[in-house]
């Protein structure tokens, strides 16, 4: 459905792919204006690439049921003999087309506009960290999606709180270590925090100097977070679907 949607409205690609890159460039120019090392610009580029994934989780996955209910599709989903988790995972994969394209473009901009070069310490661990980060954030996204089975505009507005505050707490544009350990530990509940920290350590020469925790510890925590959020998503989707049915909120539009 997502891929067909993109085909119907190609202008979406331009808005989704190119224009969101502008704030990332702005943050890179901040470091450039300070004559900071190129790796710092790389930190921004990596953080910027991960914003594409986080935005996909927030608006392509967590808020998916909001749109489906507003357009009247949610009731059809409920009528079908299928799992709501499967729908959400499918939607996430459908969005992956534009999301990963945006990630690649972000890195190309980093390389050709800002001269960022990667010094990868281990491609294996970099791949493992990336996949685990994606798994954990998608599980978190499914948990958040469950709230849209009973809430409407209120959940939608509250979701906006997970943008800039998460960009700040998770250290999208600076290493999370800068926040200090207590705040960093709290931010680690958002999987992208540890994922970003690990990837910076593995992909940049200056990365290890800014490490919050060792890579293997962060990988272990990401595994735990994935399992916990996946179980939480399963529980919450079932529970809130039941509540939505009982209170008649599954078909309630414009609330």
């Amino acid at each position: 459905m997502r891929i067909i949607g993109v085909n119907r409205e190609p202008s979406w690609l331009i808005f989704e792919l190119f224009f969101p890159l502008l704030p990332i460039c702005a943050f890179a120019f901040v470091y450039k204006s300070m004559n900071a090392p190129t790796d710092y610009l790389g930190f921004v580029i990596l953080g910027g690439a991960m914003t594409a994934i986080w935005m996909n989780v927030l608006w392509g996955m967590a808020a998916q049921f909001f749109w489906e209910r507003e357009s009247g599709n949610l009731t059809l989903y409920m009528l079908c003999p299928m799992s709501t988790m499967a729908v959400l995972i499918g939607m996430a994969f459908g969005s992956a087309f534009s999301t990963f394209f945006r990630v690649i473009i972000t890195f190309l901009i980093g390389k050709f506009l800002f001269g960022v070069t990667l010094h990868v310490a281990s491609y294996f661990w970099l791949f493992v960290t990336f996949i685990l980060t994606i798994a954990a954030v998608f599980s978190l996204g499914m948990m958040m999606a469950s709230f849209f089975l009973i809430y409407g505009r209120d959940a939608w507005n509250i979701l906006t709180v997970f943008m800039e505050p998460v960009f700040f707490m998770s250290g999208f544009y600076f290493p999370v270590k800068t926040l200090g350990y207590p705040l960093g530990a709290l931010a680690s509940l958002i999987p992208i925090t540890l994922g970003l920290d690990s990837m910076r350590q593995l992909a940049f020469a200056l990365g290890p100097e800014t490490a919050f925790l060792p890579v293997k510890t962060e990988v272990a925590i990401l595994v735990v977070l994935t399992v916990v959020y996946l179980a939480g998503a399963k529980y919450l989707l079932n529970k809130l679907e039941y509540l939505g049915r009982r209170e008649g909120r599954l078909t309630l539009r414009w609330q």
Partner: protein
Amino acid sequence: MAVTDTLKRSAKVVRSAAWLGWQLESNWADPAIFAIITIIRPLASLLIIIFMFRFALGASASADLLNFFFIGNTVYLFVYNVLFGISQVIFEDREHYEVIKYIYISPVNWYLYFIGRGFARLIIAGVSCVVSIVAGLIFLPLKFNMTAAAVPVFAFSFLLGIVSIFFMGIIMCALTLVMARHGNMMSESISGIFFILCGIIYPISALPVWLQKISTAIPISYWLEISRRLILNTDQTIDAAWHGVSTADLVYRLGFSTAVLFAFSVVFFYYMSMLARAKGIIDRTTSY
């Protein structure tokens, strides 16, 4: 008499639209939660930059640099909120609440209706601005040295700046009349262009030379530089792109560009609304 009646009627349209916009923005939560949600995003944006400075420069970050970015970031709150607010109205009324056809056939001036809807976001931007200033006073070595003589010029330029972004918002609103739902990313995108080009959080002189030429032709850039000079009580800021240009000249450029934007926004809005009507897409929904 007729002129007075027209003005009264216009004011009523703007006031009613502003009230409607405010209800839509705020009535989904109790005031305490709404207040928290309203202040938390600008606060986080401010903290991102503060921690970037802390990470890259440590204690060596100069007060001039911090003041420069702080004023830019605070003024940008108005730019983002108003541009986003006005251009989103089409999607809200057309796609979400599906009421745009009723508004279209009602006896109100459409242009003024959209201006009015933008006021709700202007209020939110104002609140965010106050929160940012309080946070800035806590976390940053701010130095507000504005003289009493500069206050009228500052107020005038601020008003011009606000009015100019309302006109830009109308231009974007006109574009969204012929766009599908996905066009809601456009306002974010245009705001992003201004964020990168207008020297919001770094001097325009940090940009490549060819981009500086574009940057120095955007009204928001004039507004920011005027605000910085008057607040910091200086003839020039750290942005070398404006060295040699007087504050009076910047105010003149801001006034002139605002007038041009007004004329263009009126013509463009009416053209696009006629185009949308001719294509039969004023009340279309695009849920794919």
